[in-house]
């Protein structure tokens, strides 16, 4: 089995790699969610060409492999003057990839907000900005948290693909270690177990967050339909 001395020797590199993995994941999720939310909002505007463009963007991202998107960004980018470092390209790629999925998740959440709530808010004289902030987004959050958590777990797994465009994340460092020590199988097995644990932790934390957010919103609006959504799913 794996020599423990190797772990001591390669420990710092693996730890650094894990840091890069977390950085790429965190930044990628953030970009993906923000961009996804903006895309979802823009899609609500009554401008037909804009809708088509956003729809095409989402279909293209969801219909092509993540790896091809990364190659296009990292290797194809310089042809149009877009020269990115591997890690930057990786974060941006992960963010763009996630944004299409998040946009769809948010759209489903937006549509699930009862019309009557928005109409009620309008008739109370609330501005669109404050309707969005105080009515739509909270209700959306409740109904979409499971899907968001699921997507974040998927993105955790996708970070591994970044190793192919030489982002020095955990998988990349692990492959370097495997190549230098010839302990290939043991290293990969260790890595499999590690990622299994990591994805499990992300999902568990997500479920806890879900319970938390749901409870908070239930207390905040005891008669709102967000309560109904929450109890209907539980």
């Amino acid at each position, binding site marked *: 089995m794996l020599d423990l001395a190797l772990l001591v020797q390669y420990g710092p590199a693996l730890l650094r790699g894990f840091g890069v993995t977390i950085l790429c994941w965190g930044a990628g999720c953030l970009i993906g969610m923000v961009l996804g939310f903006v895309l979802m909002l823009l899609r609500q505007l009554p401008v037909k060409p804009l809708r088509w463009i956003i729809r095409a963007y989402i279909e293209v991202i969801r219909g092509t492999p993540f790896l091809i998107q990364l190659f296009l960004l990292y290797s194809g980018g310089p042809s149009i003057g877009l020269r990115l470092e591997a890690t930057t390209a990786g974060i941006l790629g992960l963010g763009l990839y996630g944004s299409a999925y998040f946009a769809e998740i948010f759209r489903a959440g937006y549509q699930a907000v009862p019309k009557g709530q928005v109409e009620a808010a309008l008739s109370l004289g609330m501005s669109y900005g404050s309707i969005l902030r105080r009515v739509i987004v909270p209700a959306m959050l409740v109904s979409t948290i499971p899907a968001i958590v699921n997507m974040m777990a998927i993105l955790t797994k996708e970070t591994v693909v970044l190793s192919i465009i030489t982002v020095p994340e955990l998988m990349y460092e692990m492959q370097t270690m495997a190549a230098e020590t010839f302990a290939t199988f043991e290293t*990969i097995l260790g890595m499999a177990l590690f990622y299994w644990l990591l994805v499990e932790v992300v999902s568990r934390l997500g479920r806890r967050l879900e319970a938390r957010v749901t409870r908070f919103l239930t207390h905040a609006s005891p008669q709102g339909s967000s309560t109904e959504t929450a109890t209907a799913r539980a």
Partner: protein
Amino acid sequence: MKFSVIIDALPYLLGAAVTTIWVSLLGVLLGQVIGVAVCVARQSGGRAADMAGGVYVSFFRGVPLLIQLLLIYYMLPLIGIDVPPLVASIAALGLASGAYVSEIYRGALNAVPHGQSEAALALGFPGRSIWARILLPQAFRISVPALVNELILLLKASSLISVVGVAELTRTSQTISASNYRPLEIYLAAGLIYLAINGALALFGTLVERRLQQA
């Protein structure tokens, strides 16, 4: 952008796309077999089978596909099975897909009314034919949209087998763009081919779904 580059490379890319398609199809077929077996074993094989199935599903859904692929690729020679990368890749895709498919079937089985298997029992059907003639056909029909979705996901995931050197669409694009220094055009073309295949699959899925609804 030089479109002549794409035209020149197109025959190779399309040839590679055919490899992508049949590798994915074989992966999905293997995944179906494994998925149905795991699902049936978990439902009717007692506690130990359920737990083993649960670990299988959790592992293959929790570990990134790239790592699964490398694991299988390096593990098979260690246990004395020397197979070409292509076979290892199909095995990896099938094992990964099987985990998702077994969950799809589990969900679909829950949607088949309980009375169905009770009625079959009352009519004296033996256990195996309740599965083969009552439960699985109905579960299959319910799960068609999810299964087509799974095929599309697997087709995209198959780009990862380029890492172990299988000359499918992604690998071939890499090879071509490394020789003509036109990565932008080549990867763009590859992306469009993936998009076209997935679009066709989605259309096919809608047609099958409509057909099954009529039946």
